[in-house]
């Protein structure tokens, strides 16, 4: 069974540019989560989808971040315009309805904003 995949693995952009990160959850997992780790600090929750609906987006830093989950499958996280403090590793995770306590994480996307 394929795990959670994320694309790209690395992205280097300049301040003010736009970047879109993609996450493909494990097939059949209704729950999808985005997390971010900035500057070696703790990994912080950004938001949670159930299928295509946003259930909790309390961790989104500001309105420069937009997450979508088309058709309840893959998800994208767009940062527009990117700022220096957005640099970090963005993790995606998914879980099935039946065992939501265990979240399966992807390898992360390392974003560097110059």
């Amino acid at each position, binding site marked *: 069974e394929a795990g959670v995949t994320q694309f790209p693995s690395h992205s280097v952009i300049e301040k003010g540019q736009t970047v879109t990160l993609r996450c493909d959850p494990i097939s059949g997992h209704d729950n999808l989560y985005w997390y971010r780790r900035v500057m070696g600090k*703790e990994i912080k929750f950004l938001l949670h989808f159930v299928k295509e609906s946003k259930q909790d987006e309390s961790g989104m830093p500001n309105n420069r971040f937009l997450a979508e989950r088309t058709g309840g499958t893959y998800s994208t996280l767009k940062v527009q315009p990117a700022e220096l403090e957005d640099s970090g590793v963005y993790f995606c995770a998914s879980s099935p309805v039946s065992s939501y306590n265990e979240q399966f*994480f992807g390898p992360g996307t390392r974003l560097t904003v110059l």
Partner: protein
Amino acid sequence: AQSVTQLDSQVPVFEEAPVELRCNYSSSVSVYLFWYVQYPNQGLQLLLKYLSGSTLVESINGFEAEFNKSQTSFHLRKPSVHISDTAEYFCAVKPGGFKTIFGAGTRLFVKA
């Protein structure tokens, strides 16, 4: 608010020595507890979890953690480490609902 404190940012240890990675959490409600591991250039992997029942939980590669409710701790231990255990370890809690709260991570360096 719930939080997780990993008391050591880095832990160097010689191969075959024992190791303990400390984790304390604060929560006013019952929690589920996890340890995740991130090997170099890889994603986060679940190492072990405590949901209920026995307070001592084990992983398949020799790690164990003990839930101590009175001390609000969930320390990770291994009696004899290998070079391949070099990684970053994250303690995490789920106080209910879907959000997982992570500690800042502990880098374990195993030296020959």
